Structure formats: structure tokens, C-alpha cells
């Protein structure tokens, strides 16, 4: 409507006089944005009201996005984790994956997680931001790893917990045996993710980040082999 597209495009990229305008050039009138590798969906778990509401109704899809600019528009206009009530969660998952272990893409997976027990000693907003940036910037997995499902922050009375959900528990899934990765490689990929997640959380060496399979936690006491690692 402002006719800027009629402007003759002088394509002299060399001196910065090009028709490519990023948000850094003009946050009100930019014409390119930075694509993310994946489309992401932000979810929120409302604290239960105490009136017998079921968890599925408390889990709300907030918004999906696929550019860096969109991410910041959302982040800058949403309640900070430190201001959420107890029993709230934010989940940032690849689009199409529900942040529940029952989801077909999660049911053979697990999560790396760390609990921050001294809530006052840490800046949960910065930690959660850095983990989200590591996820959307694709710093957690390498191409072809195909392991990251999403990241989550849980606000609880006695702690904050940040988790990284993975597609597998470090071994090939039923029906995927023999597709490329050996058992050792699958486990090494999972351990690498754990180490990178730990680095994103800027934890000390002696603060263990632990992995557990979703079905292990869902059926505590089951006889199946537990996938339990730590980095």
C-alpha cells in the first residue's frame, strides 16, 4: 500500500544499497526474514483449577512460527516463566508433535532433564530462553540425527525443571532396525544431545543432567530395561 514495491530495485549489493532490508535495517519496513530449519509450536500447560479438569484440556497450543523474527515477537510479548503460577509448563515442540509421551512420535522416546532446586539462585527466564534458542537455532542436534522433539520448562513449588525430549532412548525403534545407525551410534547421538543440552544450560561439570525413557516413568516398576544415562 505504501508503494515501496514500485521502487526500482538497484541491485548493488556491494555497498549495502540493495533492496534487501533486514529487521536490523528497519524494524517497521523490512522485506526479508530469517528462516528456521523447523516449524515450531509453543504450548502452555495451565495449572489445574482443582475442579477435576483433565490434563488434555489444560494443555493449550499457543502459536506456531518458522522465522527468527516471529520467535522474538512472541517471546517479547508472552508471560515470563518467572511470572507463571506453580504447575505451569511451557513446551516448545516441532510442529506436529504433541508434547505428551502418548504422541506416536514420543512414545518410544525419553528426555534429558535438569531440576533447579534453588529457584532463587538462578535466572529461569534466561535459562529457558537459551534452551529455546539452542533448539530453534539447531544447536542441539546435527542434521540427520532426527532426535529432538522439543524442550520444556516445568514450574513447580520446589523447583524449576528444564527438559529436552528425544525421539528415541538411544536405540533404534521397532521397524527401524538396521537403518544406518548401529546401537553404539544411536547411544552416542543421545549422549551428544545431552552434553549440548547441558552446555546450553551452562551447568557445572558436577551437576548431572539425567536421561529417562518416557515409558519408564509412565510405568514405574515395569520390568522393561530402563534407559537411564547421565552427562
Amino acid at each position, binding site marked *: 500500500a505504501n508503494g515501496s514495491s514500485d521502487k526500482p530495485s538497484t541491485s548493488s*549489493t556491494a555497498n*549495502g544499497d*540493495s533492496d*534487501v532490508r*533486514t*529487521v*536490523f*535495517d528497519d*524494524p*517497521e*519496513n*523490512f*522485506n*526479508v*526474514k*530469517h*528462516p*528456521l*530449519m523447523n516449524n515450531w509450536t509453543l504450548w*502452555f500447560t*495451565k*495449572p489445574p483449577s*482443582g475442579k477435576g479438569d483433565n490434563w488434555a484440556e489444560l494443555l*493449550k*497450543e*499457543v*502459536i506456531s*512460527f518458522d*522465522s*527468527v*523474527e*516471529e*520467535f*522474538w*515477537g*512472541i*517471546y*517479547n*510479548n*508472552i*508471560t515470563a516463566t518467572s*511470572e*507463571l*503460577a*506453580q*504447575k*505451569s509448563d511451557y513446551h516448545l515442540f516441532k510442529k506436529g508433535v504433541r508434547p505428551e509421551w502418548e504422541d506416536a512420535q514420543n512414545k518410544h522416546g525419553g528426555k534429558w532433564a535438569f531440576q533447579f532446586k534453588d529457584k532463587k539462585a538462578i535466572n529461569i527466564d534466561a535459562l529457558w530462553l*537459551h534452551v529455546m*534458542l*539452542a533448539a*530453534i*537455532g*539447531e*544447536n542441539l542436534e546435527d*542434521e*540427520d540425527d532426527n532426535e529432538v522433539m522439543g524442550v520444556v520448562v516445568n514450574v513447580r513449588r520446589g523447583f524449576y525443571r528444564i527438559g529436552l525430549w528425544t525421539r528415541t532412548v538411544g536405540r533404534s525403534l521397532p521397524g527401524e532396525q538396521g537403518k544406518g545407525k548401529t546401537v553404539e551410534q544411536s547411544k552416542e547421538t543421545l549422549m551428544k544431545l545431552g552434553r549440548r543440552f547441558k552446555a546450553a544450560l551452562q551447568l557445572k561439570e558436577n551437576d548431572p543432567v539425567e536421561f529417562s525413557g518416557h515409558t519408564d516413568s509412565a510405568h514405574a516398576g515395569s520390568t522393561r530395561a530402563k534407559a537411564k544415562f547421565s552427562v
Partner: protein
Amino acid sequence: ETNKSVEPAQPTAGMQSLKSARFLQVRNEAINYPEGIKSPNPALNVTSKSRGRCYDKDFLLQFQEVFREKPSVDWDQKLKETVGDSTDSARPQSAR
């Protein structure tokens, strides 16, 4: 309070830019970021499949103060329906 004749809010210039902007081909376009703005770490995007869509934390953090637009004109309402307004969430839960 629920007056339906209220004019719908117009999207801001920033919201419209976000909607109409095209995706950069980060690997194939030489982008001249303004002075003081760091480019994405090229080491993250050396392999063919990354398509130039890997970004390091320092690059991403540069956007934090630059782009602060709400995702949509009805964002406040949407937020209220999903996350709840901050006064709600900040209220300590009574243990009954």
C-alpha cells in the same frame, strides 16, 4: 463492554512486514548487516543440508531488542485464552 461496533485494530507496520517478508537464502545471499550486527556463525552452516538455517545464540540474541511486535492484533486476547493474563498467573494458588 462488549461493544461490537468497535473498529478492528489495524496491524502495525512491523506486523505487516513480518507477514510479507520473504525468507532469506542465508547461504546464498550476501547480506550486509548494519555495522555492529554479527552475521550467523558460518561454521554452523557448512554442510549442505543445513540450508543456512542454523544460528548461534549470539546471533539470535541480537534480535531481542530489535523486534518487539506482537504476533497479531488479537494477541492479547489469544494470550488470555491460552496462557491467561499475567495477573491470573501471578496470583498464588490457594490450597483448599
